[in-house]
């Protein structure tokens, strides 16, 4: 400890100044994120004042969206945002966690690096390209093959009933899942890699099988971190815009069937802001932005609470 201090303080005095400057610089940079979010929130609030004044809390529970008569409500968009994100998580989390486990625990060394590279490539595809691939390749395939199969096997659930045209809530969920798989996988992989080798060895010493080692020593040790990875993915899913817009069908409605078109907060802003004239219409779109910010905050808080309840207060391995 003493040694290190001596090394960093090359010339006396300057080291202390350097430390101080470094601390303040990083503090400033860390604070700038806070300032940025506050400014965004303020700007959105200012933009949406007119709409708030006009519609009040009713805005959040109303399903009307009628630019001709200047009547606006956010509910179908909130519904679409939350549902498409949930679908995405349901699909992406098992795939991502399984991939991360395979990469850190099971895959032969020579295969790990190429696989990681492919996952990172997936993250590099621009969302508009994924969206175009979505409407021209994925959606027709879903419409012709997957959806009819789901309808005949799972059709007893209201979620999978009714005719589809192709673009729908489920298609949007699938596209978003593809987009969040890389981030959940990469972060989960880092978490699993940070599990100390001792944990595994201890489990093996107790006579555990490979699956038991993974389950007891690795996954249970890192569940808090993996949960964090999922939250990162969820954040991306909530705000995803272009690709979703292209495959969700863009109809502001609340229906049980995932085969029907929906609409998300981010999509409607991207779609309508350019051509929104008058005063209330753009203001209502601003308020949707504020609602999106709010939904993100609420979902994050909810996730933190969930984490506290299920994962326990610390990362200490439980016996």
């Amino acid at each position: 400890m003493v040694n290190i201090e001596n090394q960093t303080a090359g010339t006396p005095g300057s080291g202390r100044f350097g430390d101080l400057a470094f601390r303040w610089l990083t503090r400033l940079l860390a604070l700038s994120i806070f300032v940025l979010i506050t400014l965004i929130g303020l700007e959105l609030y200012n933009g949406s004042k007119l709409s708030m004044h006009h519609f009040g809390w009713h805005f959040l529970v109303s399903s009307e969206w009628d630019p001709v008569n200047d009547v606006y409500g956010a509910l179908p968009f909130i519904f679409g945002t939350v549902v498409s994100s949930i679908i995405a998580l349901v699909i992406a989390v098992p795939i991502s966690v399984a991939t991360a486990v395979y990469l850190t625990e099971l895959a032969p060394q020579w295969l790990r690096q190429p696989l990681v590279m492919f996952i990172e490539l997936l993250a590099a595809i621009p969302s508009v390209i994924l969206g175009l691939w979505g409407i021209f390749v994925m959606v027709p395939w879903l419409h012709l093959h997957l959806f009819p199969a789901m309808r005949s096997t799972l059709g007893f659930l209201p979620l999978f009933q009714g005719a589809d045209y192709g673009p729908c809530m489920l298609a949007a969920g699938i596209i978003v899942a593809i987009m969040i798989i890389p981030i959940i996988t990469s972060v989960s992989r880092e978490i699993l890699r940070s599990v100390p080798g001792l944990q595994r060895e201890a489990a093996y010493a107790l006579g555990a099988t490979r699956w038991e080692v993974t389950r007891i020593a690795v996954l249970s040790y890192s569940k808090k971190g993996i949960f964090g990875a999922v939250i990162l993915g969820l954040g991306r899913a909530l705000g995803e815009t272009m690709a979703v817009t292209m495959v969700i069908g863009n109809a502001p409605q609340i229906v049980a069937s995932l085969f029907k078109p929906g609409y998300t907060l981010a999509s409607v802003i991207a779609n309508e802001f350019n051509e929104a004239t008058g005063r209330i219409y753009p203001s209502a779109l601003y308020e949707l932005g504020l609602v999106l910010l709010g939904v993100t905050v609420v979902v994050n808080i909810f996730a933190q609470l969930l984490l506290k309840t299920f994962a326990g207060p610390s990362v200490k391995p439980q016996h």
Partner: protein
Amino acid sequence: MNKLILTLFGGAALLVSQTGAQAQTLINGAGSTFDYPALTKWFEAYGKTDADVRFNYASIGSGGGQKQLLNQTVDFGCSDAPMKDSDMAAAPGKILHLPIVAGGVAIIYNLPGNPKLKMDGDIIANIFLGNITKWNDPKIAALNPDATLPDLHIVPVHRSEGSGTTFIFTDYLSAVNPAWADSVGKNTSVRWPAGIGLGAKGSEGVAGQVKQISGGIGYAELAYANQNKMAYADVKNAAGKFISPSPDSVSAALATATIPDDFRFSMVNPPGEAAYPIAGASWALVYQQQKNSEHGKKLVAFLKWAVTDGQKISATLDYAPLPENVQQRELALIETIKY
């Protein structure tokens, strides 16, 4: 090293000041994406007429164009819909509407064998309202006795984002169908009847969806329908004739539309025999009193050129040329711009 950088810097500064000394005027515009291809071609051609002026146009959408003009951050705005009275009243000066291009909106569809179909406003409105759901509906069959119409669900596809094309389409349906006017109305985006059809992003999205869905129907600018080689309908006009969309039939619509002196008009369903009924104009928006006299002078010269000589150029891009009588009236209005 430092000296070298200084010299380079100085040289660059000199260069900048020299180009400045040539006094090239930069005119800024923003707005409609529908006008963008025409404007780009015009700017290029006009550069040969007057080398002292350069143009910068941000294709950010009609709403954006109106906002930028109201904030006086641009010399002209472009919009596919005329400005609302309330917005005009909020402006710091009188705003003139000058139609610069006009275009038709084609009704595109995808059916087995793609027969040429005839439609009227009543059928189109009822399809998008969800009242006509099958292609072999008696109403469609009555207009198309020779076509083989399949027992297929109709899937209407509309633009999901706000667009001038949607404005023209819903303006037409509001003009010909009272039920549409009451329940939906007209705007750049509207509340589409719930549970019917799909919203697709951009003209390419609508064309793409209609191409993929057997039984799909949608609307897109004529140029788009032609580029994608899609089947489109002949639409019944106010004189009872079935007309195919083309630059000529849209010009015919312009020639017979009732155009007030402030040029804030709708040209859907005009009375002309040869007129295609689903058509609209797009406007350049300028202040009558220009703030900067140099910019004003150059802008006026350009606008005069655009509504006359420029029309021959835009016609090559499937825009309908403005008829002679409209050109003359616009020139008279442009003369009133003060700078």
